[in-house]
């Protein structure tokens, strides 16, 4: 090829394939996570591929073409949003890494086109494309399949690049990444809820018959055909029907869009190379310094210094580390989602025995307990070594962590309990509330101890929020965290069984409630007392903990 630096291209392609290979051969943890990804996404993609193939072959016109359009547009959209998730972990998508070398724009573009052949999104595309080829090649449309699919592929690569280069400065800004973690995880958690809600509303308000006629006459391709890859579905459909003129026109339209978008991409690349990055407003613009007094809530003032300072720091960090903030938000969201699922699932028949709500509260309290308390040393991040350098009382550190963890876990419980009085008789609910407090205490005690014994690395990298941590805890720590934690919690929680039995089995509400209050004191006491042994263990194991959590060297 003229003007292409082939030595450079070969090196880049070689680098890309080596990186891909290393994903599977590096550490043991890597191959396992690769397998997990494969196990989750593999069947999904294969399923969609097979289903679409069956659709192409079995269904009557116009459905095969409609499905084809849906698949092609879906792939295109996936590629467009891929940079948001994959950009920073994906070498070939992110051309900015090549900027330090004297690589021409043309070489960069070529490198991207070849490099993406070895990227994750491509593995998703292959089976879907195979299904299209297998189903449509035997029709009159075969020339359009052969020409159209490569064009569709180029469209996908290019839209991803435009998003990557065009919005790069935003995508790479820490604030955007922080926000995206929170937004995506909340959307993920409430996915079921949203879809249930939508169907429910549809069922309630949409006349079934008209909905059916709507679905039968719905032709999404009529709109999707104007999108770059939708038009290729049109071209293949027309080709299969023998309308070669129309088919060529649609293919030409897509090609025209390809040239246009390709030009936009090259212009953006040029700007990137010459340093005029295209940006929508300044990323991470420093806020004007405004002198702020430290905000301290009046409640914290009750705590003595330095306990107060550490608790304050724990709370601030839990909120500011996006991976942890998710936990805080979900602690409030999950009960709403759970009850939503219950209400929509059809189990709910109007007759509702509120007596069990208290029991549910106890079980639920374990989720925020684990979320806020477990692996607490790892969440100190880089700062952990600084903490270990200070002569601060280790017991105090754990007391602060315990207080914070219990406060945060109790917050959603305290928030929901008053609301639940509307649907539950008061005595069992109050019993549940106190037992939940006790359970939070017991659970916190255990996770604090385990955070010293079995710490495991977490991903706190603001640039790669969705990546797995490079190093993982070994087999034993993982096992102990998964099995040991609930086991020991259950053991320490045995006294709580008595009031549970009294209230929900024997229906002796008052004695149960009194015992529950005692259990709450017991659980919180266990948490407080456990700070001693945890601190003792910590002092013995500090360098080993640092080593187990050691951040991997930069890439």
């Amino acid at each position: 090829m003229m003007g292409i630096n082939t030595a450079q291209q070969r090196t880049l392609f070689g680098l890309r394939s080596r990186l891909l290979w290393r994903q599977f051969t590096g550490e043991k943890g890597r191959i396992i996570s690769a397998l997990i990804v494969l196990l989750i996404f593999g069947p999904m993609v294969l399923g969609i591929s097979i289903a679409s193939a069956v659709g192409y072959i079995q269904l009557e016109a116009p459905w095969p073409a409609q499905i084809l359009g849906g698949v092609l547009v879906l792939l295109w959209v996936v590629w467009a949003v891929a940079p948001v998730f994959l950009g920073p972990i994906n070498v070939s998508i992110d051309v900015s890494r090549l900027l330090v070398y004297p690589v021409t724009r043309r070489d960069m573009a070529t490198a991207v086109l070849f490099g993406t052949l070895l990227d994750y999104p491509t593995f998703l595309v292959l089976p879907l494309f195979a299904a299209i080829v297998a189903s449509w090649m035997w029709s009159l449309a075969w020339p359009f399949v052969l020409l159209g699919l490569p064009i569709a592929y180029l469209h996908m690569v290019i839209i991803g690049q435009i998003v990557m280069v065009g919005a790069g400065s935003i995508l790479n800004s820490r604030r955007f990444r922080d926000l995206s973690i929170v937004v995506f995880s909340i959307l993920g958690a409430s996915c079921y809820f949203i879809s249930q809600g939508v169907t429910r509303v549809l069922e309630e308000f949409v006349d079934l018959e008209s909905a059916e006629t709507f679905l039968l006459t719905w032709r999404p391709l009529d709109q999707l055909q104007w999108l770059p890859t939708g038009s290729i579905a049109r071209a293949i459909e027309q080709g299969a029907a023998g309308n070669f003129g129309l088919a060529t026109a649609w293919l030409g339209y897509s090609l025209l869009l390809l040239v246009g978008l390709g030009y936009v991409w090259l212009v953006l690349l040029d700007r990137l190379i010459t340093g005029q990055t295209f940006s929508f407003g300044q990323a991470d613009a420093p806020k004007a310094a405004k002198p702020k007094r430290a905000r301290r809530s009046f409640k914290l003032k009750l705590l003595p210094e330095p306990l107060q300072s550490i608790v304050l720091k724990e709370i601030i960090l839990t909120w500011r580390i996006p991976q942890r903030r998710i936990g805080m938000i979900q602690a409030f969201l999950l009960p709403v989602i759970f009850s939503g699922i219950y209400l929509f699932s059809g189990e709910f028949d109007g007759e509702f025995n509120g007596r069990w709500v208290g029991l549910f509260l106890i079980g639920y309290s374990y989720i925020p307990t684990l979320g806020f308390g477990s692996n607490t040393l790892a969440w100190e991040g880089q700062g952990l070594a600084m903490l270990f350098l200070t002569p601060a009382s280790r017991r105090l550190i754990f007391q602060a962590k315990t207080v914070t963890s219990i406060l945060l876990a109790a917050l959603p419980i305290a928030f929901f309990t008053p609301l639940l009085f509307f649907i539950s008789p008061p005595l069992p609910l109050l019993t549940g509330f106190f037992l939940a407090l006790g359970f939070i205490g017991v659970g916190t005690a255990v996770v604090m101890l385990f955070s010293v014994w079995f710490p495991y690395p977490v991903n706190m990298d603001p640039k790669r929020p969705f990546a797995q941590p490079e190093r993982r805890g070994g087999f034993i720590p993982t096992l102990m965290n998964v099995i040991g934690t609930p086991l020991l919690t259950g053991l320490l929680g045995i006294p709580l069984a008595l009031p549970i039995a009294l209230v929900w089995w024997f229906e002796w509400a008052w004695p149960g409630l009194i015992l529950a209050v005692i259990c709450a004191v017991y659980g919180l006491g266990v948490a407080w007392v456990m700070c001693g042994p945890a601190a003792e263990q910590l002092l013995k194991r500090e360098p080993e903990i640092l080593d187990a959590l050691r951040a991997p060297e930069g890439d």
Partner: protein
Amino acid sequence: MKPIAIEAKGLKKQFDKKVAVHDLSLTVEQGEFFGFLGPNGAGKSTTIKMLVGLLRPSAGTATISGFDVWQEPLKAKAQLGVLPEGLNLYERLNAREFIRFAGTMYGLEKRDVDQRTEELLALMDLEDAAEKLIVDYSQGMRKKTALAAAIIHAPRVLFLDEPFEGIDAISVRAIRQVLDRLRSSGTTIFFSSHILEVVQRLCTRIAVINEGELVAAGTMAELRQKAQSDPDSTLEDLFLKAVGAEEKQNTQIGELSWLDGLPGASA
């Protein structure tokens, strides 16, 4: 004789097969300004981490002001201020919060914490950035933040791993003034650096480590004497000699002949 501030006896660290520090013994007296030199990968940071209690030695002992770092860690740490190689900052705090937190953890009164924090922020020229999260700081700002946190409690013994690398000239001068103040008030300072000129100017005593072993230690005069160099040889000369890099470099640089003759450059 002055009391001993830092004492290492037979310190050794082995990572898998690699011996990073081998049988290292040294003593630093109270009030000394001790320079710790060595090529990249020589084992400087590893030694410092073992001396301050962040890395468990494979063998040997470390003592700070008479407290064994591994037997009485909290008492030893109460004497210490450390600027570690990795800085170890809480990325999601801002400089003010971080320095305050450090002060509290070192057991200062709240009033002192507040006052010293503001003074240190001003000294390090971090006031404008004090509300931004550390995760968004430049390398030099991070180091200054860590340094401020390391000295807020006026430690008796201060360990600094490459404090001047990556810091602008204005801040270097400010930091040097602080170090001078600390030293005249009796603080022992142990620091590693690659900026030999600064080490020569500041340090009362210097040790050189190479491939995990101590190859030279003493005052400038003692080092010159041992190396049998002339009286006005610089630390750089002595350093290169001590690590045996002098001849090696000279022969190797001869081989890079392709570096000469840039197009357009006059001979």
